[in-house]
């Protein structure tokens, strides 16, 4: 299995992603510069976290127009797995790979802390190693993770089983109280319809090593390797 991590000028979790991917695959991913017009042949692409263009204007808006995004869309259409983490989630929604948008957190502050997520959909290469309804602990670090979609879109996402994770309590309860940032339906991560593209605000790559406080994120990368090799 081969993987690539996209590097935008303000990416800052590109290395974090590469380390986690390498740990699961056993080989380093290709680092691809945002201005490249060709993607290497890979099975799996990570659009990492950071502040791609300083997050000026709207998070991810400018990165969504990078030359490499056209290639990523093309690859995604052909079924290449794409994972957008944090700013990467913002970028791929701005680029239209996923529905909805990410607004400012409801209390407007940047939030960095571990959160509990309830796994909603295990039928995907990303989540196959989790159990349905399992609660995992993964950190967030964002100011704009408030997922918004209009009623019809939201209904469609729910109906088609596209919700990957929701913000929950340690016991797995999903409520307004556990809604970290104001996201509709407590949504922390969503798939495209085919479940080959996943975007999420929390950082699985920063919870893939016990020294960092846990390894719940590792199962995502291990699952992908298992599915794609």
């Amino acid at each position, binding site marked *: 299995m081969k993987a690539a991590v996209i590097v935008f000028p303000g990416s800052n979790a590109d290395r974090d992603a590469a380390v986690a991917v390498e740990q699961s695959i056993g080989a380093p991913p290709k680092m691809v510069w945002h201005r490249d017009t060709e993607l290497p042949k890979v099975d799996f692409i990570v659009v990492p976290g950071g502040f791609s263009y300083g997050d000026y*204007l709207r998070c991810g*808006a*400018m990165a969504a127009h990078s030359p490499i995004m056209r290639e990523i869309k093309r690859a995604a259409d052909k079924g290449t797995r794409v994972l957008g983490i944090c700013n990467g989630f913002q970028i791929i929604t701005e680029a239209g790979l996923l529905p909805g948008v990410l*607004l400012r957190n*409801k209390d407007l502050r940047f939030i960095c802390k571990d959160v509990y997520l309830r796994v909603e959909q295990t039928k995907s290469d990303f989540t196959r190693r989790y159990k349905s309804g399992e609660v995992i602990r993964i950190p967030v670090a964002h100011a704009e993770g408030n997922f*918004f979609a209009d009623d019809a879109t939201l209904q469609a996402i729910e109906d088609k089983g596209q919700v990957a994770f929701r913000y929950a309590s340690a016991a797995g309860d999903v409520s307004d109280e556990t809604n970290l940032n*104001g996201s509709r339906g407590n949504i922390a991560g969503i798939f495209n319809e085919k479940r080959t593209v996943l975007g999420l605000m929390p950082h699985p790559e920063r919870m893939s090593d016990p020294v960092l406080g846990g390894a719940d994120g590792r199962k995502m990368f291990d699952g992908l390797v298992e599915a794609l090799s």
Partner: protein
Amino acid sequence: MKARVHITLKNGVLDPQGKAVENALHGLGFGGVSDVRQGKFIEMKLKAGDAAAAKKEVEEMCRSLLANTVIENYAVEVID
């Protein structure tokens, strides 16, 4: 030639910033304020030949970058 662009959230889209501003204003004693909405205001200079062409160009910018039409509306004015 100059252009001014207003980008505002569509009705029905939650505006956490506007709401926070409204709360803060209430806290400061401005009790009569309501329905605060916050948007963006962008000014720019353009090389376009005439106002109509300029307007078209800026609208194109709005659609492709400046606004996210899932949640935002835009309005363009061109000033000579």
